[in-house]
C-alpha cells in the first residue's frame, strides 16, 4: 500500500498554517465495524441527515453512490447503464485494483503538510475513488456521503477523482453527522486530476455539529482545456472548520472556479480559503465567496490568485455580511503576479444589511423579519454556482430548508 508513512510520522505534531490547533488525542479511533447494506435500507435518521447534504438514499436522479459511515464503507455502486463508463469504489479497493494509482496518491497534497494530512496518511479510513472514463459525458450527478455516527470519532478519508480526457461529470459530496453526534474530527483528503478537455462540477455540502471539527485538504490538477468548478456550502454550526483548497491550472486554457456560500452561526470558527495557481497559457480562475456571520461566529475568508503565466487571468470576489455585532469576518484577498501579462483582480466587501434595503422591502409589504430573511437568503443565492437547473433547484431547497428555522 503506498503511503508516505515516514514523512507523515515526522509531521504528526505539526500545526496547520491556519485555524485552531487541535489535540488529535481528544478524538477516538475505535468505531464499530458496520456491514455493507442496500442504501435504501439505511435507518431513517441517517437517510434524513444525508438528504440535507444532497445525498439521496433513494438514488433518484443519481447515477452512482458511495456511502461511508464512520470507518466502514456501507455502499458503493453505479447504475448498470453506466458500467464501463464510470468507476466508483472505495480508495482502499481502488489502490488494490490499480497499481498505477500510486502515481497519483499524495502527489498533489504533501502527506507531511500538517498534522491532519499526516493523520490521514497514518490512519486512513477509506474514502471514494471516482473515475470517469475517456469521452464520457454524464448528465446526472454521482453522489458520495461521508457520515459520522459515533460521537467523538476521528474519521480520515482520502478521496481520489480522476476525470479522463474529454469526460464530463457532476459530483455531489455530502459530509454530515448523526443527530446524536456532538463532537468529532473529519479529515478529508481529496486529490482531483482533470485530464485534457474534461469538465467537473463538484458540489460539496457540509453539515456538522456544534462541537465538531473539520479539516478538509483538497488539491486539483487541471490539464489543457479542462474546467474545474467547485461549489461549497456550509450552513450549520461547527466548532472549527479550516480548509484551503488549491487548484493548479497547469494546462493551456485550463479553468478553475471556487464558489462558496457559508453561514457561520453560534460560536463557529470558519477559516475558508481558496487558491488558484495559473500556470498554463490562457488559464483562467475565479473565486467567489459569500459569507454570513451571525451570533458569535468568526469567519476568515482567504483567497489567493497566483499568476505564473503571461497569458492568464483571474478574479477574486469576497462578500461578507455581518448580522450580529458579536460576529466577525476577516476577508484576506491576495494576488501574486509573477510575470507581466497576468491579469489578477479582487474585490472584497463586508457590511451589514443596509437599512435602506429593509425599508424598501417593507414598502413592498414584507415585515421587517421577512425583509431581513429575504436579504440574507439573497446573499446565499445559488445562482453563483452555475449549476444545471434541476440540481440548482435541489441545492436551493436544501439551503432554504437548512436555514428556515434560524434566519
Amino acid at each position, binding site marked *: 500500500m503506498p503511503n508516505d508513512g515516514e514523512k507523515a510520522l515526522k509531521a504528526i505534531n505539526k500545526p496547520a498554517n491556519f485555524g485552531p490547533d487541535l489535540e488529535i488525542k481528544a478524538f477516538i479511533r475505535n468505531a464499530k465495524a458496520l456491514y455493507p447494506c442496500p442504501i435504501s435500507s439505511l435507518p431513517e435518521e441517517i437517510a434524513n441527515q444525508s438528504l440535507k447534504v444532497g445525498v439521496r438514499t433513494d438514488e433518484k436522479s443519481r447515477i452512482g453512490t458511495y456511502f461511508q459511515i464512520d470507518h466502514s464503507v456501507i455502499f458503493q455502486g453505479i447504475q448498470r447503464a453506466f458500467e464501463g463508463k464510470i468507476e466508483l469504489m472505495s480508495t482502499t479497493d481502488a489502490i488494490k485494483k490499480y497499481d498505477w494509482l500510486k502515481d497519483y496518491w499524495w502527489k498533489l497534497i504533501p502527506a507531511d503538510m500538517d498534522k491532519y494530512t499526516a493523520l490521514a496518511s497514518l490512519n486512513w479510513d477509506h474514502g471514494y475513488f471516482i473515475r470517469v472514463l475517456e469521452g464520457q459525458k454524464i448528465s446526472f450527478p454521482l453522489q458520495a456521503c461521508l457520515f459520522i455516527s459515533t460521537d467523538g470519532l476521528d474519521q480520515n478519508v482520502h478521496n481520489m477523482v480522476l476525470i479522463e480526457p474529454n469526460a464530463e461529470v457532476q459530483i455531489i459530496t455530502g459530509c454530515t453527522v448523526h443527530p446524536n453526534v456532538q463532537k468529532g474530527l473529519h479529515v478529508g483528503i481529496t486529490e482531483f486530476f482533470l485530464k485534457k478537455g474534461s469538465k467537473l462540477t463538484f458540489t460539496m455540502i457540509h453539515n456538522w455539529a456544534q462541537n465538531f471539527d473539520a479539516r478538509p485538504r483538497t488539491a486539483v490538477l487541471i490539464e489543457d482545456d479542462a474546467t474545474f468548478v467547485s461549489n461549497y456550502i456550509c450552513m450549520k454550526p461547527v466548532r472549527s472548520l479550516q480548509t484551503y483548497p488549491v487548484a493548479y491550472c497547469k494546462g493551456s486554457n485550463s479553468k478553475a472556479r471556487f464558489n462558496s456560500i457559508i453561514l457561520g452561526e453560534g460560536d463557529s470558527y470558519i477559516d475558508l480559503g481558496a487558491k488558484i495557481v495559473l500556470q498554463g497559457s490562457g488559464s483562467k480562475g475565479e473565486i467567489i465567496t459569500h459569507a454570513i456571520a451571525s451570533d458569535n461566529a468568526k469567519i476568515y475568508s482567504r483567497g489567493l490568485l497566483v499568476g505564473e503565466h503571461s497569458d492568464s487571468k483571474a478574479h477574486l470576489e469576497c*462578500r461578507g455580511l455581518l448580522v450580529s455585532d458579536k460576529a466577525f469576518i476577516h476577508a484576506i484577498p491576495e494576488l501574486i503576479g509573477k510575470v507581466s501579462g497576468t491579469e489578477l483582480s479582487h474585490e472584497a466587501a463586508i457590511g451589514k444589511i*443596509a437599512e*435602506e*434595503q429593509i*425599508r*424598501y*422591502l*417593507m*414598502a*413592498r*409589504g*414584507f*415585515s*421587517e423579519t421577512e425583509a431581513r430573511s*429575504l*436579504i440574507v*437568503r*439573497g*446573499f*446565499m*443565492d445559488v445562482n453563483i454556482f452555475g449549476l444545471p437547473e434541476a440540481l440548482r433547484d435541489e441545492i436551493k431547497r436544501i439551503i432554504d430548508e437548512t436555514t428556515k428555522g434560524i434566519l
Partner: protein
Amino acid sequence: MYSLKIKDLCVKVNGKKILDGINLTIPKGEVHVLFGPNASGKTSLLMTILGFPNYKVVSGEIWFNGTNITNMPTDERVRLGIGVAFQNPPAIRGVKLADIIHNFLKSESNAKKKEIELCKTLNFTEEILLRDLNLCFSGGEIKRSEVLQILAQKPSFVMLDEPDSGVDVENLGIIGKVINDFLKGRSGLLITHLGYILRYVDVDKAHVLIDGRIACSGEPIKILDQILKEGYGWCEKCLTMEKKH
C-alpha cells in the same frame, strides 16, 4: 370620502425640522401632484406617509381610508393599500424582482400568466424577474420596475416619486400611459420636478412645497405654467405674504 388626510404634520429627521404644518387631503379617486424645488421636502413627505422610522412625526396625524396610520409600521400601511414607486430604489443583491412580484400575486389564480402579462405591459421580457433587484438596471428599467411592482400590488392609493426623472422619451411614454390607465378609479400623489409626466397623466390638483410647507394649492396646469415662467420664487412670495398676515 378621503383616501389620504394629513393634519398639521411636523416631521424631523435627525433633529432637524423638514416638514412644518402640512395639511393635505386627497379625496378618493383624485390624483394630486406635488411640485417643489430640490430639498423642499417632497420625498420626505412620501417617506413619512410610508412610516420610515428616520422620519419622526413630532406632531400631527396621517389618516388613510379612515384609519389613523401615524404610528403604524410600513408593511401594515402597505397592506392597507398604499403603494409607492421610489425615485432611487436601492439595489439588493440576490433578491429578485420575482420575489416581490410573487409575494403580491401569491393569492391570485393564474399568477404565472399575470406576471408575464405585467412584464409585457411594461415592455420587459420575463428575464427581468430573475435579475437581482435594481442591480445594474438602466434608468428606464428602474422606473419601469417600480411601476411593475405597483401593478402587481394594486394599491388603492399610489405615490410616485419622480417617475419621469432620468428616463428617455420612449420609456416616459410607456410609463406615463401605464400609470394613467392604472390610476383610473384610484387615488394618488405624484411628485414631479419638471412636469413631463403630466403630458400623460391626468391630475386633479397641484400643491407646491417650499421649505417643508405647502405654499399654494390649485389647478395643476396654471401652477405648472407659473413655475415654468417665474420659477419657485413666485411661490416663496406667497409664503412670505402668508407669514405677514
